[in-house]
């Protein structure tokens, strides 16, 4: 769609920005997968790699910002082009946050050192990760193809992640009550689960932005929520 401007250089600018966002998204996906992989496999080397790789995502975000500001100054974009650029800025923000959350998981893997929680507890986190990665992949795809239906499906599909997060919390609480020595690793795991749940929220933010780019209107309806972690899980356990 960004290939019909009278000024061809404008097409190239917009394509460059979209390409950088897609690249950033790909990197973030890998970071998320790697960080949880490091957790499941107790692989601190991989975790180190994840923490180091985050700077590439940050650098891309800066590049997207610079290019966007320059394009706005140079072309004074209107309508869909303007939404495209503003959207890219917002997407870069959300993706950068996802990268940070993955990095935080990797840091916790390093902090856990040998004290890993039992695999059965990690399985819930892995399940959440699978769901989040699916969402992330779908929404980046929706962005690349400018597919509003797909974006809206992601926007509505966050409920299950929230529900799994709640059940992971309950499980971890039980485990901690059984033996206080489990607390340290369970707390780390809880933060990991929360991080992944936050990634899911960023995926829905991205979906909202994609919808805005395509449609021009923000989503006004309320998003279905399955997140009850903070309150009922803690009081009801």
């Amino acid at each position, binding site marked *: 769609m960004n290939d019909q401007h*009278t000024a061809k250089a404008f097409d190239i600018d917009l394509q460059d920005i979209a390409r950088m966002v897609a690249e950033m998204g790909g990197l973030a996906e890998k970071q998320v997968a790697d960080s949880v992989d490091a957790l499941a496999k107790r692989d601190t080397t991989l975790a180190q790699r994840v923490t180091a790789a985050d700077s590439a995502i940050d650098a891309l975000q800066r590049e997207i910002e610079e290019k966007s500001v320059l394009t706005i100054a140079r072309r004074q974009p*209107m*309508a869909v082009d303007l939404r495209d650029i503003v959207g890219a800025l917002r997407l870069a923000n959300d993706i950068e946050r996802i990268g940070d959350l993955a990095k935080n998981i990797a840091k916790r893997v390093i902090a856990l050192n040998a004290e890993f929680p039992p695999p059965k507890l990690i399985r819930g986190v892995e399940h959440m990760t699978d769901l989040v990665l699916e969402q992330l992949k779908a929404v980046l795809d929706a962005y690349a193809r400018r597919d509003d239906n797909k974006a809206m499906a992601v926007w509505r599909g966050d409920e299950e992640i929230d529900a799994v997060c709640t059940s992971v919390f309950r499980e971890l609480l039980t485990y901690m009550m059984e033996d206080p020595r489990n607390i340290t690793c369970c707390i780390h795991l809880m933060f990991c689960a929360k991080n992944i749940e936050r990634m899911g929220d960023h995926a829905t933010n991205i979906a909202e932005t994609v919808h805005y780019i395509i*449609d*021009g*209107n923000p989503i006004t309806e309320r998003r279905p929520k399955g997140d009850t972690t903070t309150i009922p899980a803690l009081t009801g356990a």
Partner: protein
Amino acid sequence: MNSMVQVKQSDAEGAAPGLGVKPKVIARDVNVFYGDKHALKGVNLDVPARAVTALIGPSGCGKSTFLRCINRMNDTIPICRVTGKIEIDERDIYDPTLDVVQLRARVGMVFQKPNPFPKSIYENVAYGPRIHGFAKTKAELDEIVAGSLRKAGLFEEVKDRLQESGTGLSGGQQQRLCIARAIAVNPEVILMDEPCSALDPIATAKIEELMDELRENFTIIIVTHSMQQAARVSERTAFFHLGYLVEEGRTEEMFTKPKDQRTQDYITGRFG
């Protein structure tokens, strides 16, 4: 081709700022022919009072033609024929009994190139009020001249040289002089045909600032090729293409989420 095309309203709610009770100018099924050429095709447009309405579109789309219908400037072109209806304050301006000179006093015009009379700054502004008999005494005329120059944001710059020639001013000052001249006869509507296209960015900013003030008292319709200018100065924007009014609506909506693909293509620079 069907001359009555459905014009898309960019705003769902319809009512626009300033459109409130009654539009100042109403155009219904306006067609303009230059000889055999059908230049404007079935245009329907409501122009709100005390607001700025921008007309945009590629060259030859009919926007200036439409503008010139509103003070019957097209009458001066022998091969030009206008059909349909244009009302100002519910009065048909093509009514044969209407005094065209009076109409043009009510509907002032500012052109692309500043065109002051080759007379003094004072005379440029005083000319209209004098021939329309607006001032009984010299003092009254002085008052109108000073007031108009003030409203046009020019008074402070020229107050000490009112007797100097208007053509000796800078381009931006000349354009503001032309605006002062237009408002001296106390018009209700001011038509501006690319008023800033011959001006530098500072002079342009001054004119835009001025339009912001003038909208309090006047209905302004501006033709502009600068999309940014339309976005900056107007409350409503109408997009013309190939003689049709394609889309009309609130300016914010027109420039962020236009409804019609042709509008989108034009404002984003995608026209071949």
